[in-house]
């Protein structure tokens, strides 16, 4: 616990249908001063709704979004399709990372071709990963 540092980001959004992973992330992010507030969504639809509602309200928007790929209702990539329709200001503000327990070629290709996706990362989110992101 390094209380002396203030969190790197104000809001971090996590979209993952796996509640345990969601829990882990929500624990890791504040613990390692990655984010102050973690916006936890187990449904991409809900998360999208939030973003749509707040797309002009910058302070409420997350600076970093971690999205799982395989989710019921709306998958990560389906989410990204809708995300692209959001305001430019939002897209300029938010950095989207794809996180998945398994990364196959197809997924990687998809991610690489999407200008809105910054990177892909295999689960679990680790201290090292978060640290790297903070530096960059």
């Amino acid at each position: 616990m390094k209380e002396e540092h203030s969190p790197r980001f104000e809001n971090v959004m996590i979209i993952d249908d796996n509640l345990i992973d969601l829990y882990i992330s929500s624990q890791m992010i504040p613990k390692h001063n990655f984010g102050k507030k973690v916006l936890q969504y187990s449904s991409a639809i809900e998360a999208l709704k939030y973003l749509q509602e707040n797309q002009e309200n910058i302070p409420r928007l997350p600076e970093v979004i971690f999205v799982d790929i395989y989710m019921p209702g709306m998958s990560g990539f389906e989410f990204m399709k809708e995300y692209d329709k959001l305001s430019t200001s939002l897209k300029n503000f938010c950095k989207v990372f794809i996180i998945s327990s398994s990364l196959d070629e197809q997924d990687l290709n998809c991610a690489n071709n999407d200008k809105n996706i910054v990177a892909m990362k295999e689960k679990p989110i680790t201290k090292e990963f978060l640290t790297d992101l903070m530096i960059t």
Partner: protein
Amino acid sequence: MPLPPQFDQVFQLLPTPTVLLLPDAPKFTIVAVNNAYLGAVNFPEEDLIGKGIFEAFPENKVSNGVENLKNSLKRVIVKQDPHRMPLQKYDIPICGTTKFKVKYANVQNIPVKNANNSITHILHSVEDVTDKKNLEIAFETERQRFSDLYLQASSCMGILKGPNHVYEIANPTYLQLINKKNIIGKSYKELRPESAEFIEILNQVYKTGISFSAKEKPVKLDKEDNGEIIDIYVDTLLQPHKDNTGKTDGIFFFFIDVTEKVKSRKKIEESEKRYRELIENLPVATYSCDPEGRILLYNKAAAVLWGKEPEIGKDLWCGFWSIYSENGTPLPLDLCPMAMALKKGRKITDQKIIVERPNGDKLNVVTYPVPFMDSSGRVTGAVNVLIDITARKKAKQILKESEKKYRQIVETAQEGIWLVDEDNKTIFVNNKLCEILGYNRTEMIGKAIFTLMDAKGKNIVEKLLLNKEDSYTRQSRFKFFSKSGKEIWTRISANPLFDEVGIYKGSLAMVTDITESKKADEKLGKLNKELAYQNREKEIRAAELTLSNKELEKTNIELDRFVYSVSHDLRSPLTSILGLVSLIEEDSREPDTLEQVKMIRTSIHRLDGFIKNILNYSQNNRTGLEKQKIPIKKTIHEIVDYVCNIKGAEGISFQVDIDEKQPFYSDWQRFHTILENLISNAINYHTKEVSGRYLKLTGTSDEKELKLSISDNGIGIEAAYHAKIFNMFYRIPGTIAGSGFGLYIVKETLEKLHGTIEIQSEKGVGTTFIISLKNLKE
């Protein structure tokens, strides 16, 4: 009783040879011989005196004088009368020889009586009349000869008397000639009025007294006395007959009828003339020679053939410049066929020679010299016929060559050729036909064609052959039976053959064996059916396959999806656990808990590695190659950095020595998989000793490939397992637990990248994997 001396003197002077005999029959002793006698018998007196007459002149074979004399002497004694014997023929021995000479004599035996009239002596006198007798005999012989001549002479003769030529005598031959009788006393004119010309000649002879002779004198003769005058030819001699005063009073005539001779000679002359004309006009070269070989006669054709006119009676034998035997060697002219025929006196037939004309032309000639001979067998000449066969020979040669050519064609033909005569008997076959029917040529010749076919075939052929007028060329499939009884299917094309006057002489057939092709056809048909059936089957099978392929593809896709989902779904909770583990590690201060959590993490990593491998495998199969330039060193360092965190990696010294001579291109993801697996294996299966452990990675990349060896001094692998370690799920018994999947993935991935892998390893020493990867730079 001595003779009175006067008597003895008289006796001695008698001109007739006389001896005085005693009548002492049968001895009749010689008591005296006169000189004439001695001269006649040519014996000395002393050889005769005192001997009996028959002792002195013994009997001989020629005459029976002794017997006659004995009888005569006996008769004189009995009758006491002189006896004159008829003309006696004596054989008088020639003194000093065993021969006799014939003597004719008139012999008288005269008894000499004494006063009382008894016979004291016999006077035996022999008058030699031999000369007189010989004259008589000669005369008689001449007379006989003349008579024969006159009566039997083949020539006619007679005498015509007086100026009117009255027949005085004429022999039978003459009568026969003129076919008349009783001509004596008749005149020539009266008997032969037709022969006026001849009467003139007779008159001439009679008048002039000059004889007339003529050979083969034609004379008119009315032989049958019917006015039909014929010509006869007679050799004639008319000789005047003169009286004592030398005046002609008649004519001797001698005729020899030579009509037949003249006629036959005329015939000969006629035929000789014809023969000459014939020879002269013969289109064949003909000439004749005398016994010495000099050419006497030749015809135009001969001169044409010779190319010159020979000099009659001078040029010899052949009439050619020079001659050669058939094989081309020069032949001396005196050995030419004509010369040989003359020399040997026999004909030489059919001798072929090559002759040269004055202009150098050479010709092939056949000669037929035939010698003539007289009745004594002497050669009197010869005639020769020359036939120019140059053209014939050339034609023959051409024919022979063309025949040879045709024969060759016929014999090498791939079709059977069959010639039959008008009775359907085989007269020619070529080899191919023999081959087709299985007979040899000798067996085929003379064979009736019907013996080679069945009743049905015979029926067909008979119908076909009936049509002999036109050509029945047509092709038909026909069945024969070979020698071995095998069915031979053929295709036949036949033609009738006719001679120059259009009479059917047989047929020519061309036969092709189609048994094999027929069989093949049948087989093909069968095969085609089978094939069609198989095709249908295949189509069905293909449809099924397409179906099952689709199904398989679907299944494959489903399986891939399944593997992916399963791996994903397996990994997902693992990552969650790892996350939780991290949280615990950070939160907990309990050393036991931390130790246990670490163990959990290790287990999860193993499981995670396995799942990742399954994912890799699935990906390797599913996805195509993605070529890119691979920074080898960098990639290796990344992997090494990553695996260093594995438990057990502590203390292992990594040596990386890569020589990147040429940029290396391959699929990065797969390259990564291969190296990660090999390197992590090297760490996991290293020895437990901490010191001196190493892992060496050395390699070179060139234009063609990357060669990379990964060496460790770990536990090593027994040679027995080397072949098996690349099998799926194979694990070496008793070693550290592994999935048995890593090297299988390595091998499979290498294959995708056109790479190979070898292992060099020894238990307890270490392991080296050498991989080579094709540089996929285009």
